[in-house]
């Protein structure tokens, strides 16, 4: 069975490679890169949890310097399904607690000859910094308020497939919530722009970063106005743990003003879909009834696509047909 799946994947890939060795920002991706990742991801989506051998003999280290459950599980299972050995280095167990710098930690791990390092950090730019110092390929699993590229990719894949389209030209995506503290937004806005979507952002001014309109989007203080005619409604979480409270008077008032209710969702196009990167704060970001079982909700589909996208990226970075080796330069 797995031989059949692997043959399908190899046929889908058709000898192609991506243009990058590390992925820390959506800015690095070309349109052919995105197309390739999506084509392979769709194939992986069909393979479910099949145990494959495409990346056997390679090691992936998940360095989650900031705690995570869902993203870490997704990266870890993805690698395991591809036949890799994995291990986790976490915040509380890491040498960082003993005063070791990130650079020294990752250079040590790099000396284990790992092929892939998945980096999550509470500070922006760590994956970028690590990528420039280690031989392993680096996948950014979220850096501060900057980016979360695999999330951006899985979101774009979900939108394309659920809207049953191969282009986002003319499609209206409305992003609602705490933009300022959101690395999900950082990657989503970049990939939507690359794919040609029309982007609207609805949030109180306190949740908007400076000059955010330079991404090529329109901002709204009135969520209803933003939602009219939307193809995609994308709600973000109010990030209490990142100090987002203080930017709004109360979660109660936020929910009343910006929370996605059935009534508000109905302002979007009839075929519109509802998305959220999770974890959802029910009845604050999105009304509880809309979260997972509502016909418009694609929240669990996003999670499923997440593993497919991560498998595609891992395979593309670990097994290169062009045999190119990452140029390695210590800082």
């Amino acid at each position, binding site marked *: 069975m797995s031989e059949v799946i692997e043959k399908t994947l190899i046929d889908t890939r058709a000898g192609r490679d991506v243009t990058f060795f590390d992925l820390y920002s959506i800015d690095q991706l070309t349109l052919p890169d995105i197309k390739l990742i999506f084509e392979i991801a769709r194939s992986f989506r069909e393979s479910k949890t099949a145990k494959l051998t495409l990346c056997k003999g390679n090691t992936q280290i998940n360095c989650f310097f900031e705690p995570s459950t869902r993203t870490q599980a997704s990266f870890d299972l993805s690698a395991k399904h591809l036949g890799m050995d994995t291990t986790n280095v976490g915040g509380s167990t890491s040498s960082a607690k003993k005063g070791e710098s990130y650079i020294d930690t990752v250079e040590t791990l790099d000396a284990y000859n790992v092929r892939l390092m998945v980096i999550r950090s509470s500070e922006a*730019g760590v994956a970028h910094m690590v990528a420039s110092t280690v031989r392993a390929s680096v996948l950014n699993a979220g850096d501060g308020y900057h980016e979360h590229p695999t999330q951006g990719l899985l979101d774009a894949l979900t939108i394309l497939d659920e809207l049953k389209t191969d282009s986002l030209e003319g499609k209206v995506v409305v992003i609602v919530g705490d933009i300022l503290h959101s690395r999900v937004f950082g990657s989503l806005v970049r990939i939507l722009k690359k794919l040609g979507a029309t982007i609207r952002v609805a949030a109180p001014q306190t949740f908007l970063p400076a000059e955010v309109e330079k991404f090529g989007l329109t901002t709204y203080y009135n969520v209803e106005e933003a939602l009219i005619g939307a193809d995609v409604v994308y709600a973000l979480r109010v990030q209490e743990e990142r100090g987002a409270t203080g930017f709004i008077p109360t979660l109660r008032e936020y929910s009343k003003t910006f929370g996605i209710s059935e009534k508000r969702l109905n302002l979007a196009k009839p075929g519109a879909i509802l998305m959220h990167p999770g974890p959802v704060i029910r009845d604050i970001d999105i009304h509880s009834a809309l979260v997972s079982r509502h016909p418009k909700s694609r929240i669990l589909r996003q999670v499923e696509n997440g593993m497919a996208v991560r498998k595609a990226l891992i395979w593309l970075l670990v097994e290169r047909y062009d045999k190119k080796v990452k140029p390695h330069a210590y800082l």
Partner: protein
Amino acid sequence: MGTILIKNGRLVDPKNNRDEVTNLLISDGKVAEIGCTDTTEADTVLDATGLIVAPGLIDLQVHFREPGREDKETIETGSRAAVKGGVTTAVAMPNSNPKADNQSVIEFVIKRARKVGLINIYPTGAITKGQAGDVLAEMRELKNSGAVAVTDDGVDVQDALLLRRAMEYAKTHDLLLMSHCETDSLTDGGVMHEGWVSTQLGLPGTPAVSEDLAVEKNLMLAKLTGARLHILHNSTKGAVTSIKAAKAQGFTNITAEVSVQHFALTDEACLGYNTDAKMYPPLRSREHVDAIIAAIKDGTIDALTTDHAPHIEPEKLLPFIDAAMGSTGLETSFAVMYTYLVQPGHISLADGLALMTHKPASIIRVKKGSLEVGADADIALFDLKEEWVVDPKRMESKGKNCVFKNLTLTGKAKHVIVGGELKMQNGAILQ
């Protein structure tokens, strides 16, 4: 102390409106004669053909880290960096450890500077005890032990009443007060200029208004108290607009400086999480940089400085948000001024040198920064034709954190004389 003849150099002395090819004789630590003959006898003869002969540069804001952080810089390595850049006089900030909030630190710095004997170093004292912003430091003692100004340096006095009293007290003792203008509550953990670049990098930004508001507060209190106020390293359009207005109202007790990086570079230098570009005040956007250049051109700015801030490598090899703030600058300041102000035609060489010589000298009231007969023989000779790539590894400073790394600059100090003694010859420091 021997005599030195500087032959056939282009003497540029902005204070005395002099710009001519001539000879200059130094004797007993002073300028003895200008325009002497080629055959004048001297112990040392420097052929300055093709070189600029200028007053040694005066830098109002450097961090020499001694006492306390000799791993980052010492008075000796900082002095060597200064000589390398043609800087013969430097004003040392008080944020050492212990802080210069008492006379013993001031006396220590003066003593060390004399022992090293490379350049003139004038220390500053703190405005408040421990730079903590609570209680005034003993300013009279600081002045009597040799401080040329008081400043809380990287930490602005936030409390307006305390700042008012500090200005009144400084005025009582005829002491210059220098302010680093920042409103802490607005900075709110910002690590770079707030704008499009900080948004792309996902980094918390410091809004320009944090500086604007503090500059206004300082100006208003200086107008009220009549204290001599010098505003350090201005970086925003709002700051220079306010200073220009205050000067236009006739307040001659107010002076202002710009650090050279703030007209040479924009916040785009931070792209790629370049921690060498992390500093306070932050590198600003183009709009602010253009306003700073305009303020230099229209005379609002009285001095150009470096805010020379050396750090050890591990403090910069960190996530941007955690990295230390500041860049070294003593070895690049003249070249940055020449490359980014004179070459593009914003100001003349004489005007640029004025901002780095006699104008800063008058702010701290020292008789330096000009080259008339009888003046202190602090002289720097620059080659305006030399183009060079900044390589921090080859710098004298212990700090290798230089924001100008890998940039090509024009203009370099070749010979430096301090107090009539040759300290650098053909780019080599003589001790």
